[in-house]
C-alpha cells in the first residue's frame, strides 16, 4: 500500500484496503432481553396479585363458569373462579376461588358468599348487572379468623340491621305481595321497611319490620298494622275508585300502621302485632263479638262489614264452623267507640241481594257484597255473644200460602226452577215453588198463582215454556225476542186458554207443560198424516200451514208400515182442515227450471201445507201428497184424470191451452189394472170452463220447431219445461158440449191429429 502512495505516476488509484475495526454487535441482544424482562414482569404481576385460594360449597351454581365468573365484593372484582367441581358425594358444588391479593381479607370465617343472579318479578328487580356480566358470586361481611372453606348461601343475606332501628314483628294468616324492602308507612310517611318475611312454627307469616329510630314513639301498644295492597280498585255505587299509595307501594306493596289516637304505651321492641287486611279493619279494634249464623253465604272474613244505619262500623274478622251446634261463628269487631251498640238484644242480620216477584231488596249488596246489619236493642247490658239472623224468612213458604197451587208436568224441565215466573198475557201472576220428580219419575213443577190472578187459570189453560231468548227466522225476518229480564235469567212459564172458556181451576190441578207456544196452542185431537217420505219433519217444530199461516204443529213423527206418519195437532177453529179430502203435503225447497218454490223453508225448515177438502165428513187420517201446487188447489180447480198406455209426462207438468198454463199434473200413478198410466191433473178454476166432455188432451212435449220460408222458429216453452207438457183442444161444435165434471177421465194422446190444431171454439165466460 505504501508502494502505491509513493508512486504518483500510477494513474489508477486502486484504493486501499483498510482493516475496519471490528464493531461489536452485542447491542442486538437487547431485543431478547427486553422480551424476557417484559414477559417476566407481566407474569410476576399476575402471580403477585393473587391471594389465597378458597373453597365455597354451594347447593347449586347456575351460571358459574371456571375462569369466567368473578367473585365480587362491594362491586369490585375480588377474585376469579378457578374450578367448579362436585364433591365426592355429589351433594355439593365446590367452587375454588382464587382471591386477589387485596381481597385476601375475605378469607375469613364470617364472610358470606352467595350467587347473584337476576331476579325479576313485579316486586323486585335485583341483580340487573348479572344480566350484563353474567351470574357472579358475591361476598359480604368479612370478619373473624382466617378460613379457607365456606358454605355458600342460596339467597342474598338480609339487609343488615342499622344501628338505632328497632324491630317490630307482625303476624298474619297470609301476606301476599309484600317483599323484603317494602316500605312501612305511618300516616303516609315512610317510617321503616320490611326486613324479612318468614313462617313461624304454627304456619303464620311473620313479618319483621325495621322502624327508623325517629319513629320509635309512633309505635304504640295500641298500634294497628295493615297491609296496603299495591293498588286497590274498588267498585262502589259511586263508581270506580283507584287507590295507589305510592309508586314504591305500587310495585312492592306496603304496610301501614297507626294508633288512631288511642294512646297506649310505647311499644317495646319485638312485640308481635296482628296484620289486618285493610285500614278499615285496623280502625275497628273493638272487643271481639261472637255471632252465630245458620247460613254464612256471602260472608267474607276481613271484608264483610257490619253496618249500622247503613254506615259501616265494623267488620267480620274470622269465621269458624262450630260442628257441635252446626252453625257458623263469626267474630266481629266494631269501632271501639261504638262497642256500646253490642247490647244483649241487638240483632245481627245478614243482608243479601234478594229478588223475588214480590220485591227486590238488598240490591246495594250486589255491588258491595253481603253485609251484616246491626239493629241495636234497647237493653242496657252489653253482650259479646249473639245469635245472628241469616235470612229474610222463608219466602217460598210465604208464597205457597198466597195463592192457587197447580202442578205442571212435562217430559223434561230444563232451565226452570224455583222462582221461575208464571206469566199470563205478559203479566207475572205466580211463580214456581219447587221442581221435583213424581212417583213415576216424571218431573213435575209445583207452581203457585197469586190469589189476585187465580181466575186466569181455567181447566182449558195451556201452559208452555218461555225460553230466555227466542230466535225466529223466517223469510226475510230474523227476530230475536228477549222476554223480560227475569225470564232472561230463568226462562219462564206462560199460560193462556186461547179463548176457550172453562171452569176456574181447582187447587192442585195438573196441567201439561208444552214446549212452545205453538205447541200449546195446537189443541185439537191428533190428526195422523201419512207421508211416503218424512224428510225434514221434526216433532214440535214442523208447522202445519193453511194459506201460509201456521195453524198447527207436528207432535210426533214415526214410521209405520214403511211410511211416515206424522201426528199433528191443529189450533182451535181449524175444523175445516179435518174434512175428508183435505190435502196435506210437505213443502220443501224446490228449484227447477219451472221456478223456485218453497224457498222460505230453507230458513224455517219444511212445513206441511194443507188445503181443506169440501166434504162434510171428517176424519183424522190423511194420506199426504208428495207435491202440492197449492195455488191451483186453493182456487178449487177442476180435477180430471188422464190415462195413457205410456207417457213421459211427469209430475208438475203444465197443461196449456193456446200457450197459457191452465193447470198441472199433480199425481202420476198406474191404472188399477196396471196396464197404463193415470195422471191426475188439476185445472185452475177460472179455466175449468175450457174443459168439455169432448175435449182432447195430447202430449205436446218435445222440441217443437217449424221451419218456415224465411224463419226458423223453436217453441221456447218446450225448452223450459223438459218435464213435459200437455196441450188440449175442444172441437168446434155449435152448442158446446157440457163442462167437464171433477174426476172425469180422458185419454191422453201421444200426438195431436192435424185437424185438432185448427179447432178454435168460442167458449164464453160463465
Amino acid at each position, binding site marked *: 500500500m505504501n508502494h502505491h502512495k509513493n508512486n504518483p505516476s500510477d494513474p489508477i488509484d486502486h484504493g486501499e484496503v483498510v482493516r475496519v475495526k471490528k464493531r461489536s454487535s452485542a447491542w442486538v441482544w437487547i431485543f431478547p432481553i427486553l*422480551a424476557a424482562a417484559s414477559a417476566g414482569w407481566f407474569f410476576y404481576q399476575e402471580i403477585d396479585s393473587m391471594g389465597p385460594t378458597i373453597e365455597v360449597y354451594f347447593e347449586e351454581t347456575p351460571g358459574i363458569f371456571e375462569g369466567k365468573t368473578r367473585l365480587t365484593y362491594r362491586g369490585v372484582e375480588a377474585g376469579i373462579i378457578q374450578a367448579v367441581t362436585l364433591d365426592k358425594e355429589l351433594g355439593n358444588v365446590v367452587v375454588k376461588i382464587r382471591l386477589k391479593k387485596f381481597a385476601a381479607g375475605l378469607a375469613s370465617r364470617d364472610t358470606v358468599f352467595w350467587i347473584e343472579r337476576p331476579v325479576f318479578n313485579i316486586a323486585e328487580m335485583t341483580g340487573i348487572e348479572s*344480566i350484563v356480566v353474567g351470574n357472579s358470586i358475591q361476598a359480604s361481611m368479612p370478619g373473624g379468623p382466617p378460613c379457607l372453606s365456606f358454605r355458600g348461601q342460596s339467597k342474598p343475606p338480609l339487609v343488615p340491621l342499622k344501628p338505632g332501628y328497632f324491630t317490630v314483628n307482625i303476624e298474619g294468616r297470609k301476606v301476599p305481595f309484600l317483599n323484603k324492602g317494602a316500605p312501612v308507612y305511618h300516616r303516609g310517611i315512610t317510617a321503616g321497611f320490611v326486613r324479612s318475611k318468614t313462617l313461624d312454627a304454627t304456619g303464620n307469616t311473620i313479618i319483621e319490620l325495621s322502624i327508623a329510630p325517629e319513629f320509635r314513639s309512633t309505635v304504640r301498644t295500641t298500634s294497628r298494622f295493615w297491609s296496603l295492597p299495591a293498588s286497590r280498585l274498588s267498585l262502589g255505587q259511586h263508581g270506580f275508585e283507584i287507590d295507589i299509595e305510592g309508586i314504591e307501594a305500587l310495585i312492592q306493596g306496603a304496610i301501614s300502621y297507626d294508633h288512631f289516637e288511642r294512646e297506649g304505651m310505647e311499644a317495646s321492641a319485638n312485640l308481635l302485632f296482628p296484620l289486618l287486611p285493610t285500614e278499615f279493619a285496623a280502625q275497628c279494634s273493638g272487643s271481639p263479638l261472637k255471632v252465630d249464623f245458620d247460613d254464612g253465604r256471602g260472608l267474607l272474613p276481613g271484608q264483610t262489614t257490619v253496618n249500622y244505619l247503613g254506615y259501616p262500623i265494623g267488620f267480620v274478622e274470622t269465621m269458624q264452623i262450630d260442628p257441635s251446634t252446626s252453625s257458623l261463628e263469626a267474630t266481629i269487631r266494631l269501632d271501639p267507640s261504638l262497642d256500646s251498640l253490642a247490647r244483649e238484644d241487638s240483632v245481627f242480620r245478614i243482608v243479601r241481594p234478594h229478588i223475588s216477584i214480590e220485591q227486590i231488596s238488598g240490591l246495594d249488596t250486589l255491588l258491595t257484597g253481603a253485609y251484616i246489619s246491626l239493629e241495636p236493642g234497647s237493653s242496657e247490658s252489653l253482650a259479646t255473644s249473639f245469635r245472628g239472623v241469616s235470612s229474610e224468612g222463608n219466602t217460598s213458604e210465604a208464597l205457597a200460602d198466597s195463592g192457587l197451587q197447580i202442578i205442571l208436568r212435562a217430559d223434561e224441565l230444563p232451565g226452570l226452577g224455583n222462582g221461575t215466573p208464571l206469566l199470563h198475557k205478559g203479566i207475572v201472576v205466580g211463580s214456581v215453588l219447587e221442581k221435583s220428580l213424581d212417583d213415576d219419575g216424571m218431573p213435575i213443577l209445583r207452581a203457585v198463582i197469586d190469589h189476585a190472578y187465580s181466575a186466569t187459570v181455567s181447566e182449558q189453560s195451556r201452559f208452555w215454556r218461555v225460553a230466555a231468548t227466542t230466535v225466529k227466522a223466517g223469510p226475510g225476518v230474523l227476530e230475536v225476542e228477549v222476554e223480560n229480564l227475569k225470564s232472561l235469567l230463568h226462562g219462564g212459564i206462560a199460560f193462556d186458554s186461547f179463548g176457550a172458556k172453562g171452569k176456574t181451576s181447582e187447587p192442585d190441578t195438573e196441567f201439561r207443560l208444552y214446549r212452545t207456544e205453538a205447541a200449546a196452542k195446537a189443541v185439537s185431537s191428533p190428526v195422523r198424516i201419512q207421508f211416503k217420505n218424512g224428510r225434514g219433519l221434526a216433532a214440535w217444530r214442523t208447522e202445519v200451514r193453511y194459506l201460509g199461516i201456521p195453524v198447527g204443529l207436528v207432535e210426533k213423527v214415526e214410521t209405520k208400515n214403511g211410511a211416515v206418519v206424522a201426528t199433528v195437532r191443529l189450533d182451535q177453529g181449524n175444523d175445516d182442515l179435518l174434512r175428508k179430502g183435505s190435502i196435506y203435503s210437505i213443502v220443501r225447497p224446490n228449484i227447477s227450471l219451472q221456478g223456485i218454490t218453497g224457498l222460505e223453508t230453507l230458513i224455517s225448515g219444511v212445513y206441511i201445507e194443507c188445503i181443506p177438502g169440501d166434504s162434510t165428513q171428517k176424519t183424522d187420517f190423511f194420506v199426504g201428497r208428495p207435491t202440492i201446487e197449492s195455488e191451483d188447489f186453493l182456487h178449487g180447480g177442476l180435477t180430471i184424470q188422464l190415462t195413457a198406455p205410456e207417457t213421459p209426462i211427469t209430475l208438475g207438468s203444465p197443461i196449456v191451452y193456446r200457450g197459457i198454463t191452465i193447470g198441472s199434473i199433480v199425481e202420476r200413478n198406474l191404472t188399477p189394472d196396471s196396464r197404463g198410466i193415470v195422471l191426475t191433473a188439476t185445472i185452475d178454476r177460472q179455466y175449468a170452463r175450457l174443459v168439455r166432455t169432448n175435449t182432447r188432451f195430447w202430449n205436446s212435449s218435445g222440441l217443437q220447431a217449424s221451419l218456415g220460408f224465411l224463419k226458423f222458429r223453436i217453441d221456447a216453452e218446450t225448452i223450459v219445461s223438459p218435464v213435459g207438457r200437455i196441450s188440449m183442444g175442444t172441437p168446434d161444435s155449435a152448442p158446446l158440449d157440457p163442462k167437464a165434471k171433477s174426476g172425469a177421465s180422458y185419454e191422453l194422446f201421444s200426438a195431436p191429429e192435424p185437424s185438432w190444431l185448427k179447432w178454435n171454439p168460442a167458449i164464453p165466460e160463465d
Partner: protein
Amino acid sequence: MTDRTRIAVSRALLASAVILYLPANAIPVMTISLPGQVDDLTVLGGVEELYTSGLVPVAGIVFLASILVPFLKILALAWLHALQGSDRQRRARLIIHGFLAKVGTWAMIDIFLLSVLTAVGQLGVLASVQPREGAFFFCALILSTYFSAEVYKPHLIWQESPAEAR
C-alpha cells in the same frame, strides 16, 4: 449494515420471538363482554370462538396466520441460522426464505382483527371488546419474526463459513 450485523440482529430477534411465543399465546389478547358473559380470549381462544360461532374459514385463516405460521417461522429461521455458512441445502433454504418473506405480512391478521373488533364492538352494555396485555406480546412476537426474516437477506445463504470470521 454488514452481513454480520444482519445475522446478529436476525438471531437476536429470533431469540426474542422464542421468548415471546409463550406469553403471546398464554395471556388473553382481548376481553369480550356480551350480555350474561364476560370472556377473556387468548389467540387460540379467539380461534375457538370464531370456530364455534360458525366462521370456520376465518377461524382457519386466523389459526394459520396467528399460531401456526409464527411457530413455523421460528422453526424455519432457526433452521436457516443453524445452516448458516454451510453449503448444504442452499436451494431449499432459498425457497424457505422466499416463503418467509411472503407469509410475514399475513401474521398481523390477528392484530388487525382485534383492532377492528375493538373499534366496532363498542355497544355499551350489549357488547364490548377490550384489548388486553396479551395483544402487546403477540404484536411483539409477530414483529420479531417479521424483522428477523426481513433482516436476513438471501445472499447470506451463499456466504461461506470463513467469511463470517473474516
